[in-house]
């Protein structure tokens, strides 16, 4: 156990374990709800928030958490059903990133002598540089995120898998969506301290996607996702310790990617075997597809992108006569109760129907 003899390794393991577990739990829902792009956006917000705090001369974490939680809640509040349009998110975070560059310039010109590498460590993390106090705070926040997620896991799962039915049963879908995104923001700020703003997407997406390939059972998947995250960060830290030329952030993400590739390979082999066993191979393979990602399929059907894309596209294809207003009105009419509910109710019954079979 010589690896744990160093205080910096102890801090890294303490903080890393809880950060990874929190990211695994949050990331599972993020992937299930097809909101990975939101996580991507928050990673860039984290960069700007941290640099803004550095420029203002306040604690870096304050800027991190304020920026990510604020923007995450904003995305949740501004979008219908707590899920924003990717293009809107893209525009906003591209600009926020531009602001980050602005703060970086301010910071490097103002105090280039004192701390020139701060920008790089925000981008790529410095888990070996955590002090004892940093590690305890990060671990406490990570634990808090896990507890909060455990508290909302049941209704959130319901709302993620079948939003309209959950809403009909009185689940506060919108509030859950916003609260969940705020927790994603907190997890992103946490992960920034471990692997950096640019790489935190790996901690959020990779363990969760791996877990979704391994099992279709949601709670088991949730536990696997958190466990994988922890195992991956441990393996990454050990790898970085054994090979000092590897940056720890790279080692962690590399291990996470390798685990995903292994799970993906296993999934393809299982699917192929099942396909060969069955007489009508294409049916068997699509059945396997459905079994493994059944929850994902339903979540995907209720994800806004498909129905949302529908009317706009239809209007564009027939847009010789109708103009922009038509597509806008189509978008507006989506909030009418009939359309989206119908679209969603077809989901579980239709199973792995090709996309064309969905009402658009």
């Amino acid at each position, binding site marked *: 156990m010589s690896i744990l003899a160093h205080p910096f390794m102890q801090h890294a393991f303490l903080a890393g374990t809880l950060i990874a577990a929190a990211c695994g739990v949050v990331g599972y829902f993020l992937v299930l709800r097809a909101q990975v792009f939101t996580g991507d956006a928050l990673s860039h917000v984290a960069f700007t928030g941290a640099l803004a705090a550095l420029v203002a001369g306040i604690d870096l974490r304050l800027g991190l958490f304020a920026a990510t939680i604020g923007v995450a809640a904003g995305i949740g509040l501004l979008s219908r059903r707590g899920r924003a349009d990717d293009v809107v998110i893209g525009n906003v975070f591209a600009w926020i990133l531009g*602001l980050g*560059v602005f703060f*970086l310039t301010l910071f490097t*010109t103002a105090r280039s002598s004192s701390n020139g590498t701060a920008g790089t460590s925000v981008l790529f993390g410095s888990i070996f540089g955590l002090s004892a106090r940093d590690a305890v705070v990060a671990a406490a926040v990570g634990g808090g995120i896990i507890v909060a997620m455990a508290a909302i896991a049941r209704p959130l799962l319901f709302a993620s898998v079948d939003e309209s039915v959950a809403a009909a049963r009185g689940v506060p879908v919108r509030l859950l969506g916003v609260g969940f995104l705020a927790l994603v923001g907190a997890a992103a700020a946490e992960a920034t301290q471990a692997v950096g703003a640019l*790489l935190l997407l790996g901690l959020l997406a990779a363990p969760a996607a791996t877990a979704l390939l391994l099992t279709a059972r949601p709670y088991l998947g949730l536990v696997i996702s958190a466990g994988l995250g922890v195992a991956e960060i441990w393996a990454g830290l050990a790898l970085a310790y054994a090979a000092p030329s590897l940056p720890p952030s790279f080692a962690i993400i590399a291990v996470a990617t390798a685990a995903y590739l292994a799970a993906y390979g296993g999934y393809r082999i299982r699917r192929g075997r099942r396909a060969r066993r069955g007489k009508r191979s294409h049916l068997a393979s699509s059945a396997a597809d459905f079994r493994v990602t059944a929850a994902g399929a339903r979540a995907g059907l209720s994800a806004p992108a498909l129905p949302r894309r529908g009317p706009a596209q239809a209007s564009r294809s027939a847009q010789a006569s109708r103009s922009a207003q038509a597509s806008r009105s189509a978008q507006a009419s989506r909030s009418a109760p009939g359309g989206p509910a119908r679209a969603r109710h077809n989901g579980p019954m239709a199973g792995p129907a090709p996309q064309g079979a969905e009402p658009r």
Partner: protein
Amino acid sequence: MISPVINPVFSWNVVDDIRTMWAYPFMVNAFRAGAVVAIVAGVMGWFMVLRRQTFAGHTLALSAFPGAAGATLIGIAASYGYFAFCVGAAAVIALATRGGRATGPASSRVSESALTGIVQAFTLACGLLFVALYHGFLNGTTALLFGSFLGITASQVVTLAATAAAVLAVLAAIGRPLLFASVDPDVAAARGVPVRALSVAFLVLLGAAVAETAQITGALLVFALLVMPAAAAQRLTARPAASLLLTVVIGFLVTWAGLTAAFYSPYPIGFWVTTFAFAVYLAAQAVQGLLRLATPHLAGAPA
């Protein structure tokens, strides 16, 4: 990052100001390169926004960083690295996600976004590894990520223009079926348009365009030029030709205005370009809102 000249002052005498700027050959090159980049990124971004592939586009944009870092590490020209990583990442996303777009069961959308995220994190981690292995690269990191319009040579502009012409030529060749497949993939597939092949081709083309653009704007800001002008233009009009043209015009104006502002201020070009583009986008949103208010009978009409 650093103001290039001994503090030039913007006098609001626009002709004089431009003359001052263009007295420096590197600024002329920067404006030429900016124009090429704005056109390519605008056109490709227009299709990207239409196809709702912003996440894939952003991932490709970021994979420019490990490309450049890796090329520097093994000591070859950075542009090879840019192309290798961007086109490689495009191929991985396209092939692993059946064309990069949810064309199969709806579950593919879930796994697709997760896979894109993993590709992004891994390529960036590779970039970090390359930077760490190549010691003393630290200042270059910010230039790679955020771009620098200084020191663009005339031969670089020529290469840039040639690549841009190639990308646009391929896009022109597949443009019509691609538009059809983007707007209505099911009907296009039924009519015999090779939707999946087009998706793969588009992503690879996007990778090439990004690789080219990133050399000037930096990996983190290609995405701004891809998404912002196109999103603004598509807010303003639904006609394909008009909004495509508008995208290019917005991208062009924003880039040149950004270059000018960066020249006359101590702040970096990335900040100016994204700020101008975001302002245009917000203005487009406002115009769209006003149009909707002005035509209430259309806003309530059924789809």
